[in-house]
């Protein structure tokens, strides 16, 4: 059965979608926040370390989906690493809780320069449904309360397509 499935995979039309255009909003934000020279040095590859700093797990589900055969993130040279020490980008979901703020800060400090932070989801931008709670860093839980942010990809949660368009802006906008 495994062999049958692999053979079909070769013969069937691929499920992978064509490459979407980078998000114009993301390009505009990156133009303000990113040192282009540093980003260009990376060439066509980005290694991401994902940090859930307080999420409801909704954003994580959609970030996972980026890796499926339909979006196939790795074909763009973007992949997820297990350690911040191997990463160019921290992808952070929020709201950043007070209990997670120190761990996030440490992950950021472990990430070698040059590095960029992408805040994913409304909560990570400080405008999610939990904002205002005693348990959130800075009261809003915005990632920018704890580490510098270069790109916000909003949504509750942002769909994989929106995530992909944002990441392509980071890859191509440098």
């Amino acid at each position: 059965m495994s062999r049958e499935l692999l053979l079909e995979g070769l013969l069937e039309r691929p499920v992978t979608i064509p490459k979407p255009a980078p998000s114009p909003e993301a390009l505009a934000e990156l133009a303000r926040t990113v040192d282009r020279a540093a980003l260009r040095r990376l060439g066509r590859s980005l290694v991401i370390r994902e940090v859930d700093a307080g999420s409801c797990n909704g954003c994580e589900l959609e970030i996972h989906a980026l890796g499926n055969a339909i979006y196939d993130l790795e074909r763009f040279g973007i992949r997820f690493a297990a350690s911040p020490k191997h990463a160019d980008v921290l992808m952070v979901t929020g709201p950043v809780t007070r209990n997670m703020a120190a761990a996030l800060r440490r992950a950021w400090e472990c990430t070698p320069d040059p590095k960029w932070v992408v805040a994913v989801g409304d909560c990570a931008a400080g405008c999610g449904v939990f904002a205002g709670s005693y348990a959130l860093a800075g009261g809003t839980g915005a990632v920018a309360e704890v580490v510098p942010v270069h790109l916000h990809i909003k949504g509750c949660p942002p769909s994989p397509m929106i995530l992909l368009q944002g990441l392509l802006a980071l890859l191509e906008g440098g």
Partner: protein
Amino acid sequence: MSASPIPLPEHSLAELLAGAPAVPEHRPWARHRVDPATWETLGRLLAAGRFDLLGLWGEREAVHVALFEPSTEVLAVASLDCPTGSFPSLGRLHPPAIRLERTIRDLFGLEPSGLEDRRGWLDHGRWPTRRPLANAPPTHYGTPDPYPFLPVEGEGIHEIPVGPIHAGIIEPGHFRFRAQGETVVRLEARLGWVHKGIEKRLEGLPWDEAARIVGRVSGDATVAYQWAFARAVEAATGTEPPERAVWLRALLSELERIAMHLHDVGFVCNDAAFALVHTHTAILREQLLQLAGELFGHRLMMDRIVPGGVVVDLDAAGSNRLRELLRTIGNRFERLVQIYDDTPSLQDRTATTGILAPGLARRFAAGGHVGRASGRDFDSRRDLAYPPYDALRPTIPVRTRGDVDARVWIRIEEIRESLKLVGRILDQLPPGSLSVPVEPRAGEGMGIVESFRGEVLVWLRLDPEGRVLRCHPRDPSWFQWPLLEAAIEANIVADFPLCNKSFDCSYSGVDL
């Protein structure tokens, strides 16, 4: 000289509570205000296995326990006033209550008297106050609290700390392994990292705003949470949602179950280094989410269920597209099941790994695939039969081996059953309106809905304007997390990801 044990009363739950005053505006199940002696008796009967612990939560000057008696199918809430700021610990008699009592102490400052574990649970000493839900929360300055893990003694024990940030795209938590060589002697989890202050945040909110927050207690089970919240509000206000809305809710709920089980079956295989199944389940799941996004306006179906009804509808064309996709998913999934079943190297990893003993599953009243893979034959869709499941009467799979393999098979069988249920829901979808207005009034309500992990419970109290005075959402993972620690014992450290994924407990759901 030892005191002779006090004999356990023979009374049923209903008889025990009959003498205690009932709270008039609590629906649909009764809530009784008990005295400390009855509270204590309930604890002893819990420990004796007569009742299942469904929930235990606090408020400023009282604690509440939700109990289910399987022999009579009676569900009730017992409440104890705590004028002196303490209550007799149930956790000292019945361990499943321990973490819930530590949470009550952290949030409300009510002391579970007799509970040996003095450590904080959700409170790591990093909030600006202590006891954030107490009447006058004291300000907290200073360094985070130390957290001594339970001691382990023996030759050649070494310690492996993992987390809170993990290696994958997963929620944060800390796991402290104590291993002898490759073998886990004890695992202890420390959670609370993603505590967002949800219960405090909900206070005073109008129910429509509160619904959006409760729908994000654990975003992967958003449909179940929204539905449980809606049922609690409807119970409190005496609202009857239209029939079509009830059936559409079940439709969304079964789609969520299929999507999450596909996700988990794939990830268990992936954690056993068998990527093929994962690749294909991920495609099927994506196709389902894309169609959900098109038909209902949100891929994860957040904010689609509201108190009074639903905000989505399904026309004949949409219904046909759903049928067609689910037929494809069903066919393709069966081939993946065959691969799972026919691959000895995969079975070698999952069979006999991470065994959860049926006795423990029963003692913790573990819901979902965790309980049902270890012989606990309970599913709130069948056993509490909330509509439309009273009409649908789903078949509930049960296995007894309790290993990773059994938990995978429960999911496989639940995907099959949910695919059938969706077909039947589409066949029988009644016509009519999608929602009714909810008339604000004071009251208390409880809603229980079966998520893909097990039953989600939402309890709340509303004021006359329909604002939330108090709301407690209880995730099924409260009674599953401690069992993961038991299931991993004597397994090798390298099998932990597999065991963990086969449970797939929620972090956000219990960190609140």
